């Protein structure tokens, strides 16, 4: 079987070729070309054809017909053509949505979760308690030019009054769609079923293309996002894509519905988490935004940190984190004034890449803070449902936990996947691994991998039509396994023993050692190798089996190896600059980061 997959990004269209060889699916060739959705070309398929042409040149198979379309094979024995073509798209800024609900923390948040999970960028969330006056809300709705609106509110059989009030704010405000002035703005209603008649009345003949799906919060105890997400995908294809230049042709070519890029990334992570029964965190750090994905206990969440990025948003990262926070990761002497100039330069010239070691160290320090802040935002959003009844016993008198607890638990985290320029294109794998460890502070045993050529979107769509192929390519070609981070939860005492480790394979000890508080150590464990790692933490430190209890786990090798981190969690750096710098330098040296 031969599959061609493309991802039409804002600037580049990336194509990959996946082939089944000896019963195993592998990604074999890759090509890319500039995206052609904007003028003067105004036809996305031109870019797709160019990217697939590069695949054709590299592979030697004829994939593009004379009329520019993708050739399909009549049988698997044919040399030329492919069996399947799939695509994702984030061209033209991706899918941009406005969502609304009755209470910001309840139905409005569920609506936001549905939109983000479907791969959209949420431009604004309107709610009855968003502390804005109705005229301010109307003004905001008028200013936005979303591709789609999702309205929720009220449980089934619950409130209708506030739902209708929100609908009555949106209807007269008449937000204009981004594409096509004569095009009716798609509006999905996923709220109280008893309000449907009123909603139909309000949005009839008002320039809206209304579609009604099941309530995404039928009760406050249950979130039912599936129908809303599916409808968002459908509407994205039927309305938004149909109005984007060349997408009508692209949809005809594709064997599976075209998906928004982040939605596809989310799908593949969910497939992997489900298939391997693990908890996953994925990050895609871009120039303007950082996308964060997580699957904990089977629950998928995605957040977009709109102002955290490495080029357009770098200035905001420095402002939000503070220059001191950024510089705490730097072990070299740097002039703060010069760094500020460097930040601004990066902002206005986003394609520049570091030319000196100093510039690289600084950029990677900024990326740590961008990732850290994005993760904090993600943890705050990925929570259990709010407004839910709690069950208590008398024993809970002094530990009454609130609803809305974060689902993200670093100790339960099994796999971290890094993607995005600063992580994927770091000169050394050790740099990517350390950036991820410093920013995310994983606890216990955590595998670290990177998606070096950002193949996850392609695989997300592929998972919808051929899950086996998606899984195999994901495991073998998509992810570059960097290794493992092994770190205890708890406060360590500098210089005092933190934990002991023993790495064995088939009864042979491969590595054994002890780490003291504040130390990091790298044990090389090559890709393809596997073994059993036993760790014995000191009293008060937890590796996943409980404080002070030993634990062992099967580990696989990676490009970096096993990183033992005895700095403690939460991670604390020394207060004085000299001590901090010495510590960072020691860690960098231990992990051979800038060798």
């Amino acid at each position, binding site marked *: 079987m031969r599959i061609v997959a493309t991802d039409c990004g804002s600037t580049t269209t990336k194509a990959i070729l996946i082939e089944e060889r000896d019963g195993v699916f592998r990604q074999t060739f890759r090509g890319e070309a500039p995206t052609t959705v904007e003028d003067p070309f105004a036809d996305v398929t031109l870019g797709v054809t160019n990217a697939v042409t590069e695949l054709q040149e590299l592979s030697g198979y004829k994939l593009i017909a004379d009329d520019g379309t993708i050739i399909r094979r009549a049988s698997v024995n044919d040399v030329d053509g492919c069996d399947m073509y799939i695509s994702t798209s984030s061209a033209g800024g991706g899918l941009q949505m406005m969502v609304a609900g009755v209470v910001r923390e309840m139905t409005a948040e569920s609506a936001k979760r549905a939109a983000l999970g479907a791969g959209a960028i949420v431009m604004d969330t309107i709610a*009855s308690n968003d502390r804005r006056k109705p005229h301010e809300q109307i003004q905001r709705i008028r200013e936005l030019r979303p591709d789609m609106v999702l309205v929720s509110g009220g449980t089934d059989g619950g409130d209708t009054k506030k739902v209708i009030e929100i609908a009555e704010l949106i209807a007269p405000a008449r937000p204009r769609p981004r594409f096509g002035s004569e095009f009716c703005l798609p509006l999905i209603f996923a709220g109280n079923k008893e309000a449907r008649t009123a909603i139909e009345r309000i949005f009839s003949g008002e320039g809206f293309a209304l579609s009604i799906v099941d309530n995404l919060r039928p009760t406050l105890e249950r979130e039912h996002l599936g129908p809303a997400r599916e409808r968002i995908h459908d509407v994205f294809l039927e309305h938004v894509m149909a109005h984007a230049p060349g997408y009508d042709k692209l949809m005809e070519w594709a064997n599976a519905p075209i998906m928004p890029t982040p939605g596809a990334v989310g799908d593949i992570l969910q497939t992997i988490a489900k298939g391997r029964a693990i908890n996953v965190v994925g990050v895609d750090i871009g120039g303007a935004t950082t996308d964060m994905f997580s699957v904990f206990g089977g629950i998928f969440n995605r957040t977009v940190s709109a102002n955290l990025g490495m080029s357009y948003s770098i200035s905001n990262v420095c402002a939000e984190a503070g220059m001191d926070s950024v510089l705490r990761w730097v072990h070299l002497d740097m002039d703060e004034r010069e760094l500020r100039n460097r930040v601004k330069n990066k902002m206005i010239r986003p394609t520049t890449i570091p030319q000196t070691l100093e510039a690289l160290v600084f950029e990677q320090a900024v990326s740590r803070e961008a990732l850290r802040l994005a993760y904090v935002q993600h943890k705050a959003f990925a929570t259990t449902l709010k407004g839910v009844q709690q069950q*208590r016993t008398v024993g809970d008198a002094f530990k009454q936990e609130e609803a809305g607890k974060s689902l993200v638990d670093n100790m339960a985290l099994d796999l971290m996947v890094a993607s995005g320029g600063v992580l994927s294109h770091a000169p050394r794998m050790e740099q990517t691994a350390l950036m991820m460890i410093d920013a995310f502070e994983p606890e216990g045993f955590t595998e670290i991998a990177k998606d070096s050529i950002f193949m996850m979107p392609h695989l997300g769509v592929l998972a919808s039509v051929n899950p086996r192929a998606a899984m195999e390519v994901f495991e073998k070609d998509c992810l570059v396994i960097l290794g493992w981070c092994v770190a205890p939860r708890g406060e360590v005492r500098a210089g005092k023993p933190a934990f002991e480790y023993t790495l064995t394979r088939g009864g042979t000890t491969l590595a054994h050692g002890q780490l003291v508080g504040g130390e990091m150590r790298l044990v090389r464990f090559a890709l393809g190798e596997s073994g059993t790692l036993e760790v014995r933490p000191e009293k008060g430190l937890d590796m996943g089996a409980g404080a002070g209890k030993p634990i062992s786990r099967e580990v696989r090798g990676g490009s970096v190896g096993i990183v033992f981190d005895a700095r403690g969690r939460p991670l604390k750096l020394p207060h004085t600059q000299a001590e901090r710098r010495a510590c960072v330098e020691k860690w960098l040296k231990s992990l051979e980061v800038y060798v």
Partner: protein
Amino acid sequence: MQIILSVAAARMCAATACAALCAPLCASPSASPPTPPLSVTAADVPWDAGGSIEISWVPAANLGSATTWLVERSEIGADGTSGPWVTVAEVAIATTTTTAAKLSHTAPYWFRVTAVGSDGSSSPTNSPAHTTAHRNFFIGEKLPLFSAILTVCACVIYFILAARKGRPMKVRRIAALEAIDNAVGRATEMGRPILFVAGIQDMDNIQTVAGITVLGHVSKTAAEYDATIEVPTSRSLVMEAARETVQASYLAAGRPEAYNADLIRYITDEQFGFVAYVSGRMVREKPATCFYMGCFYAESLILAETGNSIGAIQIAGTAESSQLPFFVAACDYTLIGEEFMAASAYLSGEPDQMGSLKGQDAGKAIASVLIIVGVVLATFAALSPGGFATAALGALRGILGS
């Protein structure tokens, strides 16, 4: 008391008479009566509430057969007339001071001291002048308490000033109060009312006052979310207070037109009549959220179980320790004792209230430290009497005035 004094006086008289009558018969060169004290002085005890005079005397060099001192007082002038003399104390011969207590702070007193021994009693030595037990402005023994009050007040003032200057006052997260917004939000989403019960006591109960304070915050949130809040009360004054509070909250939320006084109503003073009404109302109306904030007794479990059965989020708060287990088991969140009283500061976040809360915490911390130190010292003093711990415990007692 009078009888004891009379007996003492009789014994004194008998001893004097016996000494006079039997002296020629019983006297021997070695059996002479004890020598009286050389001088007696009396002075008002300073730093007290009045009523005490300290008497001291100078014993003679040769006390003879004296074994005790008999100290007596009289309210009648010492101008030749005597008595009636009332015994103040009979103390061991080694002692040279004693305190006469429970005296009038207006009357003058004279004192005399007699040495008493196996060979009879000496002649008494009188105090040279009368002494009055004056009341003092400060009571010395209350000084530790005064110091403690000053310390706590200083802490409160310090934290209030610090809070006013913008110093962040960290207060532990109280889940029950954090959950108020979600509870009100639930009622909004479900299109059902919120029920607030401020206990069954009147406004003279501090818990009712605390409950009404929480009502202010809940009703403001309800006004912002446009949710309906019902407040049944069992006291008419509580109803009035609740109405004013809720009205003020709706005004503060910018929605005065949404305030409905009819939803805050008086039911009955009768405990179970009130509970029957509230429970019935809960079953019929199925409020999405129930608040129980105030003083509750037997009705706590009835209300909380009814609320639980209708699927409402319930937040309770009371200082009645006997009712807390019921609320904890049946409600989603419970404010326990002090948390309930601190709710006002926690919810408002006003610097003065937060500073006051922190100041009180500092006072409690000091008291806790003293209790722990006292327990440790008392334990060691019991294990090894007379050691350092005993001395330290004595010193601590002295400092604390106990």
